[in-house]
């Protein structure tokens, strides 16, 4: 029970009177928790790497997916927003170390001030992540899934992305949503109906001869790629998605199976189905860590205000939550690299 006694002399003593590895009990256990959590996160990121290597030819290009910035509509700003989020998190890490540093000097008010800044930084980060999720789920361009399960996106003759809403016209259709009142208990609508139906997109595609289909495959510029008659000449860029000729596009469109708008756990308009799953799971799990970090920080912040650590003459609790908070920042550094950069 030694660890729970709050007088200054006894907090530093493990039961037997010495400190293995020169660290207090709480700090060492926090380190070991961090080790296990780090392995959990690396498991997720390694699984992401596995799936990406497995579908290396067709994986979505992240800088085409995350292009939004608040208050800048229609502007493609790849990476700027995540970069901003990264800065916010690094900065909240800095205020956390400053709090720990002030704790060493037993400056209660300074600790409280820096803790407050850290909490605010954490909240801004979680909020930013929510906004990022919103954009990801809503989507921007829309796409078509073929019967074979591959994804078709639309570009004009120069290779610029075209949104579904820019060329598809809603036709008067007889399609009626299945309501509870018309259904028996086992009948449900498969998914929320999309804005446009497959027939509408197909008709609109026929009516717009300037449109082309962009496949999931990444153009490599190899000899086979150059000889491929299905690929439009002159618009291909190495390490970008392949653009088909009008004829090949038309052929692919005949195979259309469903309209995909935005992202969910089953399919997404960006490409590989697994991409959205990993996005939700990894950034979600990290966001959950940030969220719980904020909660823990608030508890410690209140304790600082109440003078709990002032009475103990030791701010080691601040140091311990600090370790956790830095770890969350550390994980984000890796998520940032492997999800957005590589």
């Amino acid at each position, binding site marked *: 029970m030694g660890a729970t006694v709050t007088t200054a002399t006894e907090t530093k003593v493990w039961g037997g009177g010495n400190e293995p590895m020169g660290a207090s009990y709480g700090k060492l256990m926090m380190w070991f928790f961090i080790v296990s959590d780090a*392995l959990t996160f690396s498991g997720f990121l390694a699984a992401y790497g596995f799936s990406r290597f497995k579908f290396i030819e067709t994986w979505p290009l992240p800088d085409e997916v995350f292009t939004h910035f608040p208050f800048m509509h229609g502007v493609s700003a790849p990476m700027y927003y995540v970069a901003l989020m990264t800065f916010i998190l690094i900065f909240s890490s800095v205020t*956390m170390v400053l709090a720990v540093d002030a704790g060493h000097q037993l400056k209660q008010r300074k600790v409280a001030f820096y803790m407050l800044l850290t909490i605010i930084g954490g909240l801004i980060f979680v909020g930013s992540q929510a906004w990022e999720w919103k954009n990801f789920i809503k989507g921007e361009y829309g796409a078509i899934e073929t019967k*074979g399960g591959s994804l078709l996106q639309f570009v004009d003759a120069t290779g610029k992305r075209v949104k579904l809403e820019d060329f598809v016209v809603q036709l008067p259709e007889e399609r009626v949503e299945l309501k509870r009142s018309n259904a028996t208990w086992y009948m449900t609508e498969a998914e929320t109906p999309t804005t446009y139906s497959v027939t509408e997109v197909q008709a609109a595609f026929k009516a717009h001869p300037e449109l082309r289909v962009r496949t999931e495959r990444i153009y490599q510029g190899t000899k086979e790629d150059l000889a491929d008659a299905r690929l439009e000449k002159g618009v291909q860029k190495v390490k970008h998605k392949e653009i088909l000729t009008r004829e090949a596009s038309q052929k692919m469109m005949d195979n259309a199976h469903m309209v995909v708008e935005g992202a969910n756990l089953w399919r997404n308009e960006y490409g590989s189905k697994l991409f959205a799953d990993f996005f939700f799971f990894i950034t979600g799990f990290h966001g959950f860590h940030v969220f719980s970090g904020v909660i823990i920080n608030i508890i410690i912040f209140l304790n600082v205000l109440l003078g709990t650590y002032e009475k103990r003459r030791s701010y080691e609790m601040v140091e311990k939550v600090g370790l956790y908070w830095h770890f969350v920042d550390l994980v984000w550094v890796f998520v940032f690299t492997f999800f957005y950069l590589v």
Partner: protein
Amino acid sequence: MAHGHEHVSNTKRIWQVFGLLSVITTVEVALGIIKPEVLHTNTILSMNLLNWIFIILTVVKAYYIVWAFMHMEGEKASLRWAVVGTVIFLILYLVFILLVEGDYIYGVFANSTIKWNF
């Protein structure tokens, strides 16, 4: 404070590390947006130079976060090894196994007679 390490204020170093981390992040983002042709198309050990730079810079960032912010530099060598050694070994092992396997499965799909993406 019957603790091993001294408790002088380290504010200057904290801000220095913050500056360094910011510079590294800025460089990463700039490279990610520009994607210089030379770096993006040339590969070493079957990974392009751009990705090598990203990964190395990330490890540098991680080093500074753990060493300066989490104050690993002030801990005993035994604690450093117990934490960092374990994590690095297991992560390298896991990543090696999974990436090699992923690449193998890619090959199976690519060379199979069944067309799976159409």
